[in-house]
């Protein structure tokens, strides 16, 4: 497919494996989306970096990526640094006739064929003050596919005192196995319209305190069964006694699909702590992806 056939902000990735290694039969994107695939030592594992020009997205940007993973190929999708969502492009003011809060939207559709695997391990999304961000991701697997899907968000630019002061973050993740939807994860974090009559407004930051990063990981498939099992065991071994203040990090584990998969949620006061926790929890991926690729994802 040539670039001219792709609409603005769209990208397409088709990854096959001819038996001797992975081959991209398509890898293309248009502004403001940029895709990069570095050469790797392992022939059966590929990385695609999802990048945006200027290191962020602005109000009104629409990005869409369609991905297909075929024939036992393993694909890792990464970003370089967090996805920053600005209300407007820095230094640029909204024209008077445009919407007050234009939405930034990102859509990802992935098909993962039988025996293939997808590892979506981006850096977190960081929405700046007043930004409005929608993200919809759908994953179509077969019974024999495997996925690790990480979706996380931070409270904003802490260095500028921003703590959950974006206008809206809406994230939707849907996972289908052989056409049957096994998980629909919808989360809405919104500052506006939280008032309740005579009561003082309760801010988003009060509801989410004391944490400034929330992560959600959906795991499914036989390739990473060990990860699911070890997380399940570690979780079952926890005993919580009465605490006098919230701990710096909290996580939860819920099995889905009769234990074929799970949902892991993590919250921590520091984004770095969530990252370190994830790196440890997903350490088994070293065996599946190779040490080099694993380090790229969690360095």
């Amino acid at each position, binding site marked *: 497919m040539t670039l001219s056939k792709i609409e603005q902000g769209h990208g397409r990735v088709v990854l096959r494996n001819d038996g001797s290694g992975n081959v991209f039969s398509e890898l293309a994107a248009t502004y403001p989306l940029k895709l990069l695939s570095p050469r790797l030592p392992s022939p059966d594992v590929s990385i695609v970096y999802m990048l945006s020009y200027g290191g962020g997205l602005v109000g009104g940007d629409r990005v869409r990526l369609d991905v297909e993973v075929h024939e036992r190929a393993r694909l890792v999708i990464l970003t370089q640094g967090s996805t920053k969502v600005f209300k407007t492009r820095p230094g640029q003011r909204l024209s008077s006739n445009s919407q007050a809060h234009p939405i930034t939207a990102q859509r990802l559709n992935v098909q993962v064929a039988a025996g293939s695997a997808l590892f979506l391990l981006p850096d977190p999304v960081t929405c700046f003050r007043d930004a409005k961000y929608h993200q919809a991701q759908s994953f179509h697997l077969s019974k024999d596919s495997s996925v690790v899907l990480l979706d996380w968000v931070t409270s904003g630019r802490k260095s500028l005192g921003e703590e959950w002061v974006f206008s809206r973050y809406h994230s939707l993740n849907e996972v289908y196995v052989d056409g049957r939807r096994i998980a629909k994860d919808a989360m809405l974090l919104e500052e506006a319209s939280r008032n309740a009559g005579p009561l003082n407004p309760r801010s988003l930051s009060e509801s*989410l305190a004391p944490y400034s990063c929330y992560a959600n990981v959906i795991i499914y498939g036989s390739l990473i069964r060990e990860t699911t099992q070890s997380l399940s065991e570690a979780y079952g071994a926890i005993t919580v006694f009465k605490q006098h203040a919230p701990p710096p990090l*909290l996580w939860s584990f819920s099995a889905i699909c009769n234990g074929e998969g799970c949902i892991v949620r993590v919250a921590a006061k520091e984004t770095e702590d969530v990252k370190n926790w994830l790196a440890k929890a997903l350490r088994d991926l070293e065996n599946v992806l190779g040490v080099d690729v694993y380090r790229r994802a969690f360095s």
Partner: protein
Amino acid sequence: MDSDHEAYVLLLLSDSNLPTGSFVASAGLESYVTHGFFTDLSASSPSRPDKMDYTVNFLRDSLSTYAHSALPFVLDTHRTIEEYLQDQTEHTASDLDPVLSRVRELDELYETMTLNHITRRASKSQGVALLTLFSKGFSKPRLSRHLSVSSDSGLLDLETRATTLVDRLKLLVRREETHGHLPICWGVLTATLRLSPERSQYLHMFLQSRSLLSSSVRLNTIGPYGAQQLLLHTVRPLVDAEMSRCKDLTTGLLASSQNAEQDGLDDDAIRGPTMTWPLGEILTARHDLQHSRIFNS
């Protein structure tokens, strides 16, 4: 539906002695307390908050996420049942199949959107309790000495149809062919009792709030009088606010509401069910990890 009937049904349903199974559920409050969230987390508050403030913090965050997640399912289930019961054409027992399969779809979607094993468990046990309540507590009694048997016209009357529907649904739940989640069963129950959809949603939020406050009393974080104060002065504006935000949200599964099933990515309005409090999800899911606990959720 005439308002006298509605008022009477409201009186029945708001009885705190109804066996709805909610007395063993704290919807994450117990875990919230255990994990140390009854402490001052704000850097700059003018006065030290007390336990009642913390209780209201939880109540607000918990109600918001529950309203956004569950009210669309109450509404769409209620609509489905109401439509079936209002359909005046002749009825036979097999006419139930389409309406039951719609209810099962809604139940399945709620299951796939409730990604937390503790909430799933609590929701199912409360849902089934409601169905049992209907068939044992709200179906017409056989009082042959006091009630004359209505003439047999060959068509099923409204109450028979409602009872048959609930019995079939109960059977499906018992056979584990559907889950029997609370918002779905609440929609079924209130539609068969001919409560309006809006009343049904409002009452559901009120009962959810009252149940949270009762668990708060049992956890000894507020007293019984404090709970009454909050019910009168705080719960009402909270329920009103959540109703105005969430009463028109739909699941997207019904033909009349299919736009919600589209992800609404480019659209400003959020139309579908969604969770709004990730912290509550984590704390609720950690319920069983508590060393000692008195609730099931």
